């Protein structure tokens, strides 16, 4: 029994959670998505939303077809006609980047959905059951974690002559679920011993309700985090595979653009308009996804947020969090504590 009866913690700056007055559907949804309700997550979601829109509206947005060859305008730097210049075949880089968003978004989300579903099933089951069943699922998860994924994907992808995006997404998903499963297992194990789960069981709740209604809502933040993490990994995986050239270059994504740019020596000839945009897009979407996850992390563990924020707030008041000595600020005396 480690009952912490120590009373006075420094009061929290403010309580984060939503007021639970509303039990309407809206209120419920609100609390289900509470982990996204912070500046970081919202910024990240906005950037991500932008790319999703670009992917959907590619036909409308792109000024040219990504494969339209124009022999009169090769290796052109950015101009009014070609905002991001042209490739060695005179293709419009901007249009390629816009169309390339599709592959990125589709593969990223498909792979993440698949990986998350596997992670939930394996992780939650492994956390809920006990004994050898839990151990063997955990061992399976760890095997998938330890076996280097990318080399495996490279080999598997090379077996297909012309792998469709769905297959690539499937392979990325199948090799990318382990981290999420591990985290979910640990959290489920801690949840299953929580008194409210015991109470539900003593109540006679059926297993599916215990998992679905008692545990899953409390796992949502972790599931979201693992989803976002897998999207990131899948996007990096896809661009890497495309860059290497193990998946065919006729389906455009940012990795394929880099493959062409590299093959045509854009990096050696300073054709920055060709290789910078796709790379920056990958970075931007990566930053967006990490921002979302930072937000979720700080929701799950408020210490992470409050630590920095509070430290800064205190600094404004002339206080230092690391000061091992309590500051004295009496009106009557001395200011020697710098």
């Amino acid at each position, binding site marked *: 029994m480690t009952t912490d009866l120590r009373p006075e913690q420094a009061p929290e700056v403010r309580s984060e959670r939503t007021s639970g007055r509303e039990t309407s559907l809206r209120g419920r949804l609100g609390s289900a998505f509470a982990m996204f309700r912070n500046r970081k997550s919202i910024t990240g979601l906005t950037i991500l939303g932008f790319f999703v829109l670009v992917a959907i509206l590619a036909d409308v947005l792109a000024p040219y077809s990504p494969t339209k060859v124009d022999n009169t305008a090769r290796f052109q730097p950015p101009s009014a006609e070609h905002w991001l210049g042209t490739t060695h075949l005179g293709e419009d880089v901007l249009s390629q980047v816009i169309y390339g968003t599709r592959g990125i978004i589709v593969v990223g989300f498909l792979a993440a959905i698949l990986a998350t579903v596997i992670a939930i099933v394996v992780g939650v089951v492994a956390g809920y059951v006990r004994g050898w069943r839990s151990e063997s699922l955990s061992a399976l998860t760890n095997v998938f974690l330890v076996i*280097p994924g990318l080399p495996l994907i490279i080999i598997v992808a090379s077996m297909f002559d012309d792998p469709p995006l769905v297959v690539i997404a499937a392979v990325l998903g199948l090799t990318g679920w382990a981290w999420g499963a591990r985290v979910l297992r640990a959290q489920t194990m801690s949840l299953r011993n929580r008194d409210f789960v015991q109470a539900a069981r003593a109540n006679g709740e059926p297993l599916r309700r215990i998992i679905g209604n008692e545990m899953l809502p409390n796992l949502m933040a972790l599931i979201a985090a693992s989803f976002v993490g897998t999207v990131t990994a899948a996007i990096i995986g896809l661009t890497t595979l495309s860059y290497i050239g193990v998946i065919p270059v006729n389906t455009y994504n940012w990795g394929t653009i880099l493959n062409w740019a590299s093959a045509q020596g854009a990096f050696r000839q300073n054709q920055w308009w060709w290789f910078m945009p796709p790379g920056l897009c990958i970075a931007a979407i990566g*930053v967006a996804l990490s921002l979302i996850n930072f937000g979720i992390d700080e929701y799950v563990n408020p210490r992470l947020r409050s630590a920095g924020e509070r430290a800064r707030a205190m600094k404004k008041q002339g206080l230092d969090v690391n000061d091992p000595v309590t500051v004295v600020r009496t009106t009557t005396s001395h200011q020697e504590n710098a």
Partner: protein
Amino acid sequence: MTAVQPRPPVEDAIEVGTTATTVVKGHSRVPWRFLAGRATFYLFTLWAAITINFFLPRMMKGDAVDQYLSRNRNVSPEAADALRSLLGLDTDKSLLQQYVEYWGLLLRGDLGVSLLHGLRPVTEVIGQALPWTVGLVGFATIVSFAIGTIGGAIVGWRRGSRLDGLIPLTTFLGTIPYFWLGLLAIALFSVNLGWFPIGKAYGVGMTPEWSGEFIGQVIHHGALPAATIVLASLGGWMLGMRNMMLTVLDEDYVTVAQAKGMPTSRVLWRYAARNAVLPQIQSFALSIGFIVGGTIVMEMVFSYPGVGKLLLDATNAKDYALMQGVFLVITLSVLVANILADVAYAFLDPRTRQTEG
């Protein structure tokens, strides 16, 4: 409460509760139980990796020899058959039989021959490439881990200061694919500034030897790829350590250390960081597989003569024996790195040394 030690009935009842001397016996300084558990896991993982490896070429559409034949038209059909049986692709044996034979070959250290490298044994081809990869990736990963962990400890400690800005910066670098960062580095430092040579592990015309000049070459050639790997993987370590520090700094023993009048540096390193580093080491073990994945692409970018480049070349040439061999070796290296991290963990965390669980 189930861990309560059984005690014989005691005459004096007061003895029962007041002695308070029940200790979990900690005589064993080597955490055998922990290590044995991990060993079992690694053996299982190894078996899984080898089995995956066995099935990989058997799932292929078309076979390696056809690929080979389409490149080398002057091979006779008899030679092709011989090649098939040499590569273990003759399918008149049952899968189980093949599996057993595969293990037999493996245990004799026979990974087949590489079509890409003039039918030289795969082990020999990999043996030449492996030191370069282990050197580059191993060095860069350890440096990145060290800088990230120490930096993360400091950033966590000095929370709220300007150092906090390091976290988004390194995270940004971490979200960029390794290869793009590498390409940018080449474009900037090799092509435009000319500070570093483009690619390869040492200059053309050099023969590997233990001379100052050769070592200097190796460092000069390796600097850029190593720096890129460090930069790209730093963010994860830094963020992880910083977050752990924030958690650990709230622990009672840190307050106790301050109440004891310990100097700040001692509180930071001996109490806070010393505890925060433990989860770091665990995630180090689990991340190695992921890092290795990113770095093999770096070898292609920098034309570095390691196993990563070997794998990509083998993939392009559909040299299955070589692909299999490389995958096996990469997995083995990752396992070895994992074991090292586990041993380090076991020695840093006394709780693993508990003999009774």
